[in-house]
């Protein structure tokens, strides 16, 4: 694949992300797309650790570490401060995990996008509270093992559809992206950067440690999430215009599930049920995009 003008590296080696960490790959792509004129707001998440213990930083842009629930509010403040200084060029991005987005930071996020603050809110989604020890979040998918959904008590609730929740705010731009599709991801970040108002990016970021997968498989599994329609790539403009970016050949979801330790307990009947849920969601998305199944 040819990705030009992305040679500038704004992330350093020596960070303490786990081997094969999808969240660091996501960060690299996003920073390459945004460039140096970026301020990052970092509520509590894996990246609070990966960005380095004081006085180190693994990022070559200004980063504000902030409280778990304040990703939307802090970004609003930073944006206001930059505007006061007359700096409308610098991009403000909140970089939060799924816990800080789906659960703990949802109120501040909803408030910020309701005000249509001019910033990007990027959620790198590894589907549980990974850096505190793999506790389930409202992003954890149906069927998954976590340290709080163990044994027979695996999560039997659906993953929250965060993009639809943001779309309901009628923000200018909301999109999904995936680390296995860098061209698509980088295009979306650049597009978001160029739009004024609130932008939301939901980035799939695999987690070898929490998902019980080999580190070298994290891209392969991320790709399969798209290929199986578990994580479709699409974007929504102004809350109404849907575009599906990738029409997969529709591999069976069991191919995705059987590679991951967190789903090992699932039986064929469970997988059939999950397949139906995925098909249903995909049908719904097609309808919203005005396409036929």
């Amino acid at each position: 694949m040819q990705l030009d003008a992305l040679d500038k590296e704004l992330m350093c080696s020596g960070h303490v992300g786990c081997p094969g960490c999808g969240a660091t790959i996501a960060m690299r792509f996003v920073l390459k797309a945004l460039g140096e004129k970026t301020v990052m707001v970092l509520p509590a998440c894996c990246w609070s650790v990966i960005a380095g213990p004081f006085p180190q930083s693994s990022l070559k842009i200004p980063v504000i570490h902030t409280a778990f629930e304040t990703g939307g509010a802090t970004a609003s403040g930073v944006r206001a401060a930059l505007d006061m200084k007359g700096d409308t060029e610098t991009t403000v991005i909140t970089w939060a995990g799924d816990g800080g987005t789906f659960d703990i930071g949802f109120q501040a996020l909803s408030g910020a996008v309701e005000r249509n603050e001019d910033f990007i809110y990027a959620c790198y989604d590894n589907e549980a509270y990974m850096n505190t020890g793999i506790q389930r979040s409202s992003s954890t998918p149906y069927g998954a093992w976590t340290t709080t959904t163990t044994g027979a008590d695996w999560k039997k609730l659906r993953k929250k559809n965060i993009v639809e929740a943001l779309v309901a705010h009628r923000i200018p731009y909301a999109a999904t992206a995936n680390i296995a599709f860098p061209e698509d991801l980088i295009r979306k970040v650049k597009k978001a950067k160029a739009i004024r108002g609130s932008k939301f990016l939901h980035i799939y970021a695999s987690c070898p440690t929490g998902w019980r997968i080999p580190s070298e498989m994290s891209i392969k599994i991320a790709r399969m999430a798209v290929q199986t329609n578990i994580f479709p790539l699409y974007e929504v403009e102004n809350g109404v215009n849907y575009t599906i970016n990738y029409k997969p050949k529709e591999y069976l979801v069991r191919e995705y599930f059987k590679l991951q330790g967190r789903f090992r307990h699932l039986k064929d009947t469970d997988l059939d049920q999950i397949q139906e849920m995925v098909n249903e969601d995909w049908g719904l998305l097609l309808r919203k995009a005005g396409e036929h199944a």
Partner: protein
Amino acid sequence: MEAELGLKKNLYMPRTSVTTESNKTGSWRFLRPRYEEKTSPCSTACPAGEDIARIEMLITQGAFKEAWETILRENPLPGVCGRVCYHPCEGNCNRREFDTSIAVHTMERFLADTAARNETKPVLERLPPKGKGVAIIGSGPAGLAAAWFLNMLGYDSEIFEAMPEAGGLLRWGIPAYRLPAAVLSNEIARIENQGVRIRLSETVSASRFEELKTSYDAVFLGCGYWRNIALNIPGESGSGVEDGLSFLKQLRQGAKPDVRGVSAVIGGGNTAIDVARSIIRLGGRAVIVYRRRREDMPAFDEEIISALEEGVELRELLAPVQIAAQGSDCILTLQQMKVEGRDRDGRGRIAADGTSPVEISVQRVFVATGAAAAETWHEPPPAETAGHHTAPLTPHLPLHLSHCTLHQEQQGTPIIYGGDLTNTSKNVTQAIASGKQAAMALDTFFQSGAGTIRERLSGCLVGEGPSLSMEIYMHGPRKERKTHIVSHQEINTDYFQFEPRVIQPRLLIEERTSSFDEIELKISANTAMREAGRCFNCGICNDCDNCYLFCPDVCILRGRDMTERHIDYDYCKGCGLCVVECPRNAMTLGEEEKL
């Protein structure tokens, strides 16, 4: 303003001052990725050992000259082989397990045609002159290849050709619809431009051979098989019976023989097919009579299919018993055969089925059942008779290699036999392989003696062999390639889409049967680039940058031109993503060495 913000004094915001680069996370690693190019299955199947994966990569990049030169390092005749080679490479292509194989021969021909059209001059490495001269007898594919490679290795090579034009079997034994004369002449001209001398119309007799031995440092015999093998049946020397090779030769010399009516062609090899298809083009009808079955025919399957398409009739399991003249016609008596078990070569063993012979009436008979060496002194010394009664020979000689035989009588001039004289499979590409092996063997002989030849050559195998690489012999970059042959499972097919193979345009059947025009037509540069783009480039890096892109630890360092990648082991945690996401298996993950 300052006073209003009196709070400011009390605000303490800690700021980072250093990067994380002081953490050498390489200490976490227990698996170690590395760049390691491997061997593609097509290149091992190619008798000439062409670096096909790299050639296709260069075509994809539009670097047609470099791709063509990459062929020339291993094969001096891409224009010929792109047309007449039976392309075993395509039968071994990993892409077959995905959709269909790459049209490697079409690409090879495209490169040769493009170079010919642009009159491109190749820039190839040549070792410093050795000050030794080699006489080469015969300018067929083996002789041309031997001369080409010996020239590359710094020898003066001089070819002696009995005919007034060079090319041997390529010129006189292959019809124009498969190999136009201009293509061959172009290839030979390039070989001459590289410094090979060709002396035409110089027949080498047994006595001349002795002279050559004294005036050259070595002699290569590649005079081919030109004597038709007799059928040993009554009537075969009668009128109306001709040998197939002579017929093809007449055609290439411009003759238009009268072949009205029906001609029987006895044999199942490529010559038999060539004769039959030529008869069709001259307006006659042709029946191939073969004593075994179609699947046992040594002729290339594509040639058989084309012959049948053009109206050649094939009669299997019929052995000729007698040919008798009847007026201007020939009565061919044939014994019906049956298959009984298997021969040692895997083909069906045949025997007369006990029925009485059948007779067919034809206007003439062509015999194309194989050929043999024209003179007994063309034959290499047999393996057993190492001449224990004569003076002790140079140890290790005669040396019988897979594609040639090296001999030296009593410290005399080394003689090397090649091409059809030594090859088990007698075809153009194997002849080129022979010329190459002979050049390497002779050079090693002069450098370090006969005893070192086998070992030196075994270090130049493409994969597990038997194909040899001159680039490896000359210590080129290909030497770094591991011999491991990449399998389909080792390709990350997520990075490839199904795409149909190029369909090479061909003449219509009606056009084919009415002229000797070349059947396969040219393809455009765009088509070639698209087809080459289908290639997995098994085992070699095409600078796709996946390793760089997906590294979570920013450990892939690239040189100034964004190629020449290195892994920064100070920080690499050994996650293995780069290796798995390499589409082409140009990387390997190994265990970290214990300290």
